[in-house]
């Protein structure tokens, strides 16, 4: 699934978020299978190794399905209560709200129900079949008959129009399933490791636990970024549908006032959960999507998600192929490098390239002719920042471990550090340049959605330019020298200069207005 269910074009920008979530979940499950297989392989022989992982996944899926069923039953019970408690007086008032919501969303069978609850909330329970908006009693008591109610209903109508609520809820359950699978996996892994014994086994468990934690954080971060992006998009829809921002703004303002009145500080766990699920209201009031931005938090979280999603298969393959463990009984490093498991990493990396390209494409489209260079480069910087920071941190840790252990091998030299520190920013810069270039080409043919051929061609063009740049620099600067640092420096500077030049050229072309902003229509 790739988010194709997003019904209208203005919500198409959410696709990369959904795709990243699904990819993260997929990689996490693959990691679980690979690692569980690796841990058992020496004892149990071929084919059997994956069995524990499959059993764990099956168990977790069953538990997830049970929870889903329970949630569905709770939802139908809630609806039944809401319908039973609808007095004639309430029905008359709600019918007016229903008509309004149907007009705003253009969904004829959209229903609105008042459900019992003391939290001040309104949400879409279903967006596809028998679309349904639910309001709590407290919400209704506060907002009935007010302009704020119209703002809130327009926002919810935006979620109905996106038709992605079921998709979003499905993801939520899958995140739970993956989390559950990992939780089930740890005791099994512990048992196996005790059976196998040895300190190397303990290192394996540490790696497994790290991968597990990282996987969970990456998926949670991406999910949170998606959640925020959905809210922003629904706000933008509401403003467009109502024809003014005032009613939506007042609604958000009152919600913020209520939150400030809360007084008691939530527990750290609750505060963390709230941070994940509740976008900043003051910021929402500025309607960033209408100005072509989506916010630093979303871009940073997405960058973190991209890095996390890539690291999960990478670490699991390293572990599964025995590279990290380096045991005599395991495969040799040369065998490990040839392992088909590396295809998983390659596939994940290619999928991530496509996701990042789409994200940049849709962000650029939203910015339309107001696309500013700093804004564009800022997006690139924020997407790449988590990857760069975490990679450097990881390198520092690994380097310290290596230097602390006698058998750990050599520490990174200046060339290693130069490449390690500049590799990721360079990759992100190449991506930005390729995306900008591809958008110019796609804009010229009036494309309304990103396409693979232009993206690949643009990437190839930037890479060729990078090779040319490197060669030129090498010839100019380092022709007579055999210094490795000089060669590495030429490589980095050549690619950096070529990517920046092509990106800037593409950016200028985009700003010439040849690129049509389909949102503005």
């Amino acid at each position, binding site marked *: 699934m790739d988010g194709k269910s997003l019904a209208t074009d203005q919500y198409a920008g959410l696709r990369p978020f959904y795709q990243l979530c699904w990819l993260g979940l997929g990689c996490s499950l693959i990691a679980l299978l690979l690692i569980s297989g690796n841990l058992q392989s020496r004892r149990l022989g071929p084919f059997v190794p994956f069995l524990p992982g499959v059993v764990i996944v099956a168990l977790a899926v069953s538990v997830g399905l049970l929870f889903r069923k329970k949630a569905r039953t709770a939802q139908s019970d809630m609806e039944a*209560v*809401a319908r*039973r*408690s*609808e*007095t004639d*007086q*309430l029905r008359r*008032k709600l019918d007016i709200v229903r008509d309004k919501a149907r007009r705003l969303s253009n969904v004829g069978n959209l229903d609105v129900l*008042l*459900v*019992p*609850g*003391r*939290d*001040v*909330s*309104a*949400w879409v329970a279903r967006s596809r079949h028998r679309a349904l908006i639910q309001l*709590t*009693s*407290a919400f*209704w*008591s*506060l907002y*009935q008959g007010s302009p704020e109610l119209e703002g809130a209903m327009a926002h919810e109508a935006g979620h109905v129009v996106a038709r992605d609520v079921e998709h979003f809820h499905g993801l939520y359950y899958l995140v739970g399933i993956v989390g559950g699978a990992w939780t089930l996996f740890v005791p099994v892994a512990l048992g196996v490791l005790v059976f196998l014994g040895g300190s190397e086994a303990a290192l394996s468990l540490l790696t497994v636990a790290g991968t597990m934690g990282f996987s969970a954080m990456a998926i949670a971060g991406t999910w949170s970024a998606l*959640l925020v992006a959905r*809210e922003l998009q629904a706000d933008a829809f509401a403003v467009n549908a109502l024809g003014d921002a005032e009613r939506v703004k007042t609604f958000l303002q009152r*919600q913020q006032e*209520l*939150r400030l*009145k*809360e*007084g*008691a500080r939530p527990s750290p766990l*609750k505060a963390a*959960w*709230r941070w994940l*699920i*509740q*976008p900043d*209201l003051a910021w929402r009031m500025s309607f960033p999507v209408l100005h072509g931005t989506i916010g630093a938090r979303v871009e940073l979280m997405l960058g973190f998600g991209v890095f996390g999603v890539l690291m999960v298969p990478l670490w699991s393959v390293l572990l599964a192929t025995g590279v990290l463990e380096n045991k005599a009984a395991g495969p040799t490093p040369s065998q490990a490098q040839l392992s088909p498991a590396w295809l998983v990493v390659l596939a994940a990396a290619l999928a991530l390239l496509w996701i990042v390209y789409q994200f940049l494409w849709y962000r650029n489209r939203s910015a339309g002719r107001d696309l500013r260079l700093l804004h564009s480069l800022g997006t690139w910087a924020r997407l790449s920042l988590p990857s760069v920071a975490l990679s450097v941190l990881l390198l520092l840790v690994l380097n310290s471990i290596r230097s602390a252990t006698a058998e750990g091998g050599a520490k990174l030299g200046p060339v290693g550090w130069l490449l390690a520190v500049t590799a990721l920013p360079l990759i992100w810069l190449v991506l930005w340049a390729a995306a900008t270039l591809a958008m110019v080409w796609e804009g010229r043919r009036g494309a309304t959605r990103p396409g693979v051929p232009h993206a690949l061609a643009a990437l190839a063009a930037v890479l060729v330019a990078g090779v040319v740049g490197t060669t030129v620099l090498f010839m100019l600067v380092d022709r007579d020298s055999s210094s490795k640092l000089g060669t590495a420096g030429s490589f980095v500077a050549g690619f950096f200069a070529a990517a920046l030049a092509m990106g800037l050229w593409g950016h200028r072309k985009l700003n010439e207005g040849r690129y049509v902003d389909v949102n503005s229509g």
Partner: protein
Amino acid sequence: MLTLDETKGVFVEKLEELLDAEAPQEADSAGAYVESPESFQGHGKERIAGVPGAGIVELAGPILLKGIVAVAAAVWAQIKDQAIEDASTAVRDWLARVFRKGEARLSVTTKEETVAAIATSLIRAGWDADKAGRAAKRVWQQGQEAGRRLAATT
């Protein structure tokens, strides 16, 4: 035997009348308060962009409902001895659900004492004294009427 729906119907009607007079913005929720009293206990849920209710929005309905039910149950039992014990399990369960587990129930004694107790709980919920006193008297009245209605149908 009095059905659960009939019992709830009596309380929805009485609570709606009371809310219409004392807290009109909540009158539409009378049905929700009666149908699912447990949904208004404890902290509200953490939902996306929602605000949990506890401490922010003190809803009058659940407090008033507890008063009406306590008075009605006392009147019902007074008119028809053993009536509540003889009521269906569903009705007895619902009467219990109105109050939070372990919550001290309103003790219905004389009119003055009961009205004062209801007024105190309303003042604790942020109502001003005059309004609370007036509403408490109405709670007593609605509870009496509800109790008599229930007794008449059993």
